């Protein structure tokens, strides 16, 4: 990289050199921020994961022991299971619902702007406020859901106070935040050229076929982006579990991030928590790359064939 830059510097004209300086000066604030507050701490955390350290009194090298101990700890596997269930349920559920809403809001409805605002609104509310709101909604006796079920003579579960229902409760709650995905789908839908639908109509395609053969393929880049971002976010879920259940009952909602938070800040094991963080990072990277790889088979970029 440095050699390439030096070569470009030598070969370039004075104008080009100035352009290069301008470009790097513009990039400098971001690079300083990234190196100082993201990449630097990441490297530090990677190093720390090979140490037994509380960052206060003792730090000594333990090699891969933290990773070995992590894979031997039942609670780690439990948190991994909880995280996987959450991620692989909320992402398809959230993406599907966001797409359905986007399709509905892409029609010529009365008060379209108002509807779009209403669906997007929950996204701008802070996670803590949303969690407190849902605590009341899931209240077994006075909550909205169980009172609604009671109208039909159904006795609702204890939701957050039951190890069976606590995680499903958080999954249901995740649907609340589909507004951001919905907005991206909406933008994607509006970017589909109308001539494709006209051609499909001339070919005699009904609405379902238009959706299946035009809308969905043209929307795959947006779906790919949404699912990737949602998956990364879902693997890191923390706020809801931290505020609403503290990982309970009986660790039924113990996410991986909550697990590593406990290890770092309650048990003051920063080396061990760093190892857990890097395992989570590896999992996220692995699934993202896998998804990226699979995208070659199903994501359609208009104009790609022309290139």
């Amino acid at each position, binding site marked *: 990289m440095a050699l390439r830059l030096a070569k470009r510097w030598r070969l370039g004209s004075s104008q080009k050199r100035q352009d290069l300086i301008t470009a790097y000066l513009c990039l400098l604030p971001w690079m300083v921020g990234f190196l100082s507050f993201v990449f630097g701490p990441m490297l530090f955390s990677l190093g720390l994961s090979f140490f037994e350290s509380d960052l206060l009194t003792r730090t000594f090298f333990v090699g891969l022991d933290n990773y070995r101990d992590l894979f031997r700890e039942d609670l780690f596997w439990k948190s991994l299971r909880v995280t996987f269930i959450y991620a692989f349920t909320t992402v398809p559920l959230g993406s599907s619902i966001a797409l359905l809403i986007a399709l509905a809001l892409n029609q010529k409805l009365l008060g379209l702007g108002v509807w779009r605002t209403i669906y997007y609104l929950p996204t701008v509310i802070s996670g803590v406020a949303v969690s407190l709101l849902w605590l009341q909604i899931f209240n077994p006796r006075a909550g909205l859901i169980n009172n609604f079920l009671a109208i039909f003579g159904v006795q609702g579960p204890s939701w957050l*106070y039951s190890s069976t229902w606590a995680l499903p409760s958080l999954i249901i709650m995740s649907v609340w935040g589909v507004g951001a995905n919905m907005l991206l789908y909406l933008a994607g839908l509006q970017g589909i050229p109308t001539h494709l639908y006209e051609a499909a109509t001339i070919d005699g395609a009904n609405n379902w076929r238009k959706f299946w053969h035009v809308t969905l393929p043209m929307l795959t880049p947006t779906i790919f982006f949404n699912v990737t971002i949602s998956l990364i976010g879902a693997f890191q879920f923390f706020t809801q579990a931290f505020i609403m259940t503290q990982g309970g009952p009986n660790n039924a909602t113990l996410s991986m991030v909550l697990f590593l938070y406990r290890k770092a800040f309650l048990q003051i094991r920063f080396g061990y928590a760093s190892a857990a963080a890097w395992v989570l990072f590896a999992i996220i990277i692995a699934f993202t790359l896998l998804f990226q790889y699979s995208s070659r088979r199903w994501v359609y970029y208009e104009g790609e064939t022309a290139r």
Partner: protein
Amino acid sequence: MSYRLSRRDLLRLGAGAVGTAALAACAPTGGPSDSAGSQDTSQESAAEPTQIRLASFDWFANVPGIQWAEYHQMEAFPRYYEEHGDVEILWEPHGDGWSTKVLTNMAAGTAPDVMSTWPPIINTWAEKQQLLDLQPLVDLDIPDADDIFLKAGWDQCWDQITQIRMALVTNIDVTSVYYSKPAFEEAGVAFPAQDWTVEDCAQTAIELTQRDDNGQITRWGGQLRPSFVLGYFYYVEAWGGMVRDEDTLMTCLLGEEPALQAFEWIRENMWDLNCLAQTNQVNASGIPNTWTGVLPANIVAFAERSADQFFDLADAMEEGSWDINHIPTGPVDRVCMGAPDQWCVYKGVAERGNHDAVWNFVKWIGAGEWYQDNVARMSGRLPGLASSADKWPSILREIEGRLEPVQLEVILEQLKSGEARGPQLFRFQSVAEELLIPAMERIYVEGAAPVDILEDIAQQVTEAQKETLARMG
């Protein structure tokens, strides 16, 4: 005349700004007097007051209309400056996640000089050698400390593992039984006697539990303090058991017979008879589990609660319609939580050069009668200094006349008799809780497991304590 800014100019300006910023960032901190370097300025800096950073909770005061932060900055600090004009105290509010933030500050060496805290957080800080040992200073300046502080609070300022005096007491919180007199009168049940037992308690709860025509409970007789460590574990001692051993603090004894009997008593009354409300049943009412609002809302007839909500109760219930009583006596002992809030000092003051100023201030807030009286007057909480604690009931009644018929003295009796005492904490409390809390949740939150699962869990806790100690070398 116009001047066009060329790209070269822009680059020069940018480079200049970056250079200036870099120089500013590398410059020593301490304000303009440091950079000037003249004799006059150095004399000025010598006269600058010694700064003390104090971190505490904004929400701490329970007295209506009093803001804890405002009281300190407008009244307490100026009062202190009258005698110590060479000091400046900087208030730093403990916000959400304060213990986590303090920990990271400690790792960075930037923790406040004086901090509000409580067990077991303070024990962790002591174990990590982040606190100044106050004992040598206490020996010099407060030689009668063992006599002037309430024992329950003072004892908990000593760390058994590191053998240091971790803090001075701000105030002590005590669990007592709060009861609604109309609930008892309507059911024709006698008010709880001072020496009531756990059998009396269960029987009273049964008699006070009300059901509707469908058999649904509309009011539970009572509720225990909704905390495993600060509530249920005390019943283990009431049955003659121990949470953990006294010497190493690492052997979990919650699987022993007295502990299991105590836990079964709680479980039976909570789940089989349901005369004591379950946590989620109270949560379902929409009233926080720790709040005395359950009494005026008639959700329970009596409840174990903290000593911090007198003014709310006086507002919510008719004068003379509620009172306070002791915790019921178990087969062996009568025991409840008596845990202090504390002022501790960060070890870094030794290098910061304000060690003496910090100690003088901590002594003033911990052992000074004016400040400790004001703990009662401004926060409504029970001071740790015994002489101020004695005045506490009358101070509260001066503030709120409707507290006149309430037996506030019961709380002092609980402290002085040894009924109120500190929680039995493990050497590595968070490691123990990681195993104990899920098990307790299975038993008491879900009602899905018998208490004897604790036999196995107790062994796991002991093993985990040993492993943690071994890992720490």
